[in-house]
C-alpha cells in the first residue's frame, strides 16, 4: 500500500512549550553511606559514562554535595531518577 505524503503541513505557532519537551536535569546528592566504588559503577552502568567521567561525577557529589549526572525530557529524566533510586542513590529532578 502506498500513500501520497503532503509536501508540507503547517501547524499553528501557539508559542507554547510543552512541559515534556523542556530539558530536565537529574541531580544526584551526596549520602554518607554508599561506597564510592559502587556509585562509580552505577553511573557507568546506567549512563554509559567512562570510568574517568563517572569518577569525576562521583567526586563532585562527594565534595560539592551534588552533581548533574544526566539530562533530557521529563520522561527520560524521571526514568533515570527511578533507576538511580532502584540502585539506592538519592536523586531528584531540576529544570535545566
Amino acid at each position, binding site marked *: 500500500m502506498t500513500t501520497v505524503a503532503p509536501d508540507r503541513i503547517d501547524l499553528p505557532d501557539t508559542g507554547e512549550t510543552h512541559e515534556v519537551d523542556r530539558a530536565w536535569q537529574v541531580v544526584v546528592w551526596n549520602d*554518607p*553511606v554508599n561506597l564510592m566504588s*559502587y556509585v562509580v559503577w552505577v553511573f557507568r552502568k546506567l549512563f554509559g559514562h567512562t570510568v574517568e567521567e563517572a569518577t569525576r561525577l562521583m567526586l563532585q557529589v562527594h565534595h560539592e554535595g551534588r552533581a548533574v549526572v544526566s539530562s533530557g525530557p521529563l520522561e527520560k529524566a*524521571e526514568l533515570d531518577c527511578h533507576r538511580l533510586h*532502584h540502585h*539506592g542513590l538519592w536523586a531528584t529532578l531540576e529544570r535545566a
Partner: protein
Amino acid sequence: MSTPFTRKGAEVRVRLDADSRAVLAALPELLAGSDDAGGRLSYRVHPSDAEAEARYRDLVGDSLDDLRREDRSTLTRSCGDATIGLEEAEAWMRVIGEARLVLAARLGISHDGWEEEADPGQSPEMALLGYLGYLQDGLVGVLGV
C-alpha cells in the same frame, strides 16, 4: 581473608562460608522489618513540587517496590549457590546497598567521615554495615560494566 568473589566469564564464583551466607539470607527479613528511617529508600523526585511528585508517584505506582522485591527474591534464591550469574550479582549488590542504608539510618549516620571512627565492636549493626560494605565492594570489583 580470601576474595569472596571471582569472575569467571559470565558468572561470579562465590567463596563464602555458611555463616556469611546466612547473613546474606537474612537481609530480606532485615529490610522487610525496616521502617525506612530517614526516608532513605523513598526519595522524592520533585521535592519542591507536590503536584509533579503526585503525578510521578501515580505514574510509577509500585514499580520500585516490585523491583526491590524481585532483587530480594533473587538473593534468597541464590545465596547458597557456588556460582551466580551477573544479573544475580547485581541484585545482590543492590540488596546489600539497601541494607547498608537501613543500618546506617538505625545507627544515626548522617555525615561523611563516620568510617574513621567506626568501631565494628560498637554494635552488631556497625559490624554488619562494615562487612556488607566489604561484600559490595567485592562485587563491584568483579562485575565491571
